[in-house]
């Protein structure tokens, strides 16, 4: 994967108890509509991708990772902000786009797991759509 330099971003949870510094691997933002992400976020989740080995988390006891199947989800136990997601064996970590202090220069480029999307919202035009993950090729946007 092409890696760009200088994409260092900071962010944190709503209450400020958890803060992080990350080096992004791409300027792309990915939205996930799977049931787990929807239940945890309350709507659907949007993530950026960063190098796991360079991720610095400052949260003390407020930050916790919870396992779910072959993944872990990190959040703030003080205010409940859903901040991080990582898959077992991946060198990268996904970070909630909503937690960024400054999201300028980043663009939402794909919606994934639309097969699990409920009907109450629409997808904006011009963004690639995928039934599951991006390994399976894009699908037509909904009418």
């Amino acid at each position, binding site marked *: 994967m092409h890696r760009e330099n200088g994409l260092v971003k900071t962010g944190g949870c709503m209450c400020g108890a958890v803060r992080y510094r990350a080096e992004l691997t791409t300027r792309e933002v990915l939205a996930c509509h799977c049931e787990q992400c929807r239940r*945890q976020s309350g709507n659907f989740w*949007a993530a950026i991708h960063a190098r796991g080995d360079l991720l610095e988390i400052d949260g003390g006891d407020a930050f916790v990772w919870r396992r779910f199947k072959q993944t872990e989800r990190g*959040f703030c136990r003080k205010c409940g902000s859903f901040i991080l997601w990582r898959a077992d064996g991946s060198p990268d970590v996904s970070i909630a786009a909503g937690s960024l202090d400054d999201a300028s220069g980043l663009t*939402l480029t794909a919606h994934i797991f639309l097969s699990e999307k409920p009907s109450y919202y629409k997808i904006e035009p011009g963004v690639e759509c995928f039934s599951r993950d991006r390994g399976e090729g894009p699908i037509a946007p909904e009418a």
Partner: protein
Amino acid sequence: MCGAVRYRAELLTVEATACHCEQCRRQSGHFWASIDARGDQFVLTAQDGLRWFRFKTTSRGFCDRCGSFLFWRADGWDDISLALGSLDDAADIVLTKHLYVMERGAYYQLPKEAVQHARGGDEPPVEKPGASKDAS
């Protein structure tokens, strides 16, 4: 997500609202969507993981076990907002308006038909739904 918090609620409406304020964005990870339910008919059928976080004059309920953002409540309000993502069945729900779009994240656009309010829903919607925040 993990099942440690479950509820039964009677909705006040099938019209749902999305909120783009900085607090909702930081807590949800993108932007939040919710539907209002009657506070006096709201029943928690599982609540082992439930924790409330106070912010100014509001409370935000989440699951301490899995970090799911579930509820929002304003002080003095009889009712409660439920996260749409937490519903077992959202088939009848329609998202009708987007609030606090002036605080929207820089990285996404909204569907063209979305009704957008700069702040709360008691103010009239902005005139150009779907227009980019960055457009000049």
